[in-house]
């Protein structure tokens, strides 16, 4: 179980001339519990801090505040030994498989370096071990081993980086926008593959996406977290959040998804006041969505709402929302 306790990440923005130096909050006071075998989707628009959060969990950047707990033990990733240990706990399937393979090395060494370093394979059995990995994701192992990344197709590379992430036998897998670069026709196959492999190995799967439909598909039985400007504004069971969204931001996102079939029910339209993503700096004490929120009142600008469990209209107790005036919108029938 990985727990995030009040994780924040701030970046200093250099000021020039009369503009003073400001601090940009990429991730703000995030609490999240992620069990083995649990599927969580993190949804948010570009720049909301979801990739920064993924990098913190993966140990690539250290948080400015807060702590990262593994099985209730505080975990720091500073030394090489700690990083190497963490690599066997959490792995990431990156967004762009081509860019994340070293172009001048053959697949054999791209795959093999980590196995050798972590002593998960001896040198004489390395080829055999890599071939097993490649067979697992349905690649022709004999042919692939001696190829360079540019000689593979997009789909093959995607499967290869999944195989590479799984080769260290992690307990948790983060997929950072892993299908956003793919053709729509290939997406479902890869998503199914993620679900299958994660269920088989009882992996925790954290799927980062900007697309509610992908989030719903991946974590249908899991959880969904909606991020806005570094804050988790809504968190709960996927079906609950999608059918009864409470935060105005989630509501506006869901009501913006176009309907094709015409049979689904949808919530009434919530249109934000502006379509520009704001910026929240450390010195402001307001609701991050207040500038765009169509329901904002004065205290939204004065006090920042915290993520609290919502108990209105008999919804489940795991549904959390960060809004002073959270309420379910009326459902309207789409005819």
């Amino acid at each position, binding site marked *: 179980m990985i727990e995030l306790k009040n994780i924040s990440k701030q970046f200093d923005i250099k000021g020039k001339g009369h503009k003073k130096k400001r601090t940009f909050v990429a991730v703000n006071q995030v609490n999240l519990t992620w069990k083995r075998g649990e599927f969580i989707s993190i949804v948010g628009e570009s720049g909301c801090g979801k990739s920064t959060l993924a990098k913190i969990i993966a140990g690539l950047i250290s948080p400015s505040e807060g702590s990262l707990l593994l099985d209730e033990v505080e975990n720091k990733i500073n030394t090489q030994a700690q*990083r190497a240990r963490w690599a066997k706990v959490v792995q990431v399937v990156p967004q762009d498989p081509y860019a994340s393979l070293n172009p001048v090395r053959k697949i054999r060494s791209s795959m093999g370096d980590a196995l050798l370093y972590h002593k998960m394979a001896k040198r004489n059995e390395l080829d055999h071990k890599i071939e097993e990995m490649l067979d697992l994701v349905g690649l022709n192992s004999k042919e692939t081993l001696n190829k360079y990344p540019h000689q593979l197709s997009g789909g093959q590379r995607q499967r290869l980086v999944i195989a590479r992430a799984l080769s260290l036998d992690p307990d948790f897998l983060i997929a950072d926008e892993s299908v956003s670069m793919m053709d729509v026709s290939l997406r479902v196959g890869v998503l199914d593959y993620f679900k299958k492999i994660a269920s088989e190995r009882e992996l925790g799967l954290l799927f980062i996406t900007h697309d509610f439909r992908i989030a719903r598909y991946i974590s249908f039985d899991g959880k969904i977290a909606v991020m806005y400007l570094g804050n988790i504004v809504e968190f709960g069971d996927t079906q609950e959040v999608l059918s009864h969204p409470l935060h105005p931001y989630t509501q506006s996102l869901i009501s913006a998804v176009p309907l094709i079939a015409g049979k689904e029910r949808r919530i009434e339209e919530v249109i934000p006041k502006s379509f520009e993503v704001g910026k929240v700096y450390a010195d402001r004490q307001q609701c991050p969505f207040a500038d765009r929120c169509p329901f904002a009142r004065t205290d939204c600008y004065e006090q920042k709402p915290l993520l609290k469990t919502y108990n209105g209209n008999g919804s489940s107790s795991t549904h959390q929302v960060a809004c002073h005036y959270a309420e379910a919108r009326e459902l309207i029938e789409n005819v």
Partner: protein
Amino acid sequence: MKWINRIIMAILTVFVVASLTFFLVRLMPGSPVQVMYLELIQKGIPANQAMNQVNIILNVIPNEPLFQQYIHWLGQIIHGDMGQSIQQTGVPVIRLIFNALPWTLITVAIGLLISFFIGVLLGVLSAFVRERWTSSLIDNIGSVAHAIPQFVTAVALLYIFSVLVHWFPSSGAYSIEVFPGFNGPFIMSFLYHMALPVFTYVLTGFGAWTLQMKASTVSVLKEDFMMAARLRGLKQNTIMGYLGSNSILPLFTGLMLSLGAMFGGSVFIEGTYAFPGIGNLLATAINTRDYPVMQGCFILTTATIIFANLIADFAYTKLDPRITD
């Protein structure tokens, strides 16, 4: 097959450049025949006799049309004969070049490799500390060192180390007390004499490599595969290997071209230190309008640059698997 075509093209290019230089050097004002002819006339020798004497001394056919001279030269060059020097009468150009080439080759090769090594190290360092003042310090030192012309650096070093503190000799490639050959005293003397020229090559050369290496390293550092390598918990040495093998690729062509240019030597550096290399030979030949020597030097420089480029292209297909031949 493709490479055979490229080699034929390269030979053709060298031939065209050599032909162009044949005409270009003869367009320069001042002809050696004219100079010597006027000298003899001034000594009171009749015009007719003076012309004969010039023709015999310089071994040229008088008033031969330029095109005839070109055909004549073409016949020579096909047989691998670059002709004879005009000023050092009767000495074949090939021999002059082969006497001068080793000096240039050794000094420039050492200078180039040292400057490449220093430049690459500083470039990587600068890329790693790119958000700190150290990085802009390295970049600025590199730019300034690269921007100062070779002859200024050469004269400055000569003045400081040879005139002010007498640490290094001011001219020549070896001391007159030693005999050229493979013996200890000669090699020591040669190393001692080439210190200042090599230092000049390094000082004027490393800046460009530093800036190129920094730009290249910074872009590789941002690549996803570097992040993916850290993600897999690989040790620092492996990650540096990933970085190095990718960021040094763009510098490779530049290095090969510089190795090619090396055969030309540096007119300025060799001139300043009176170093008996190709650069000095060329400078003297230009000053005395020694056409065959000039042409010989130009053909050598052109050919080496063109073939170095060809080798670079070929080697690149081996170094970078993304480029196919």
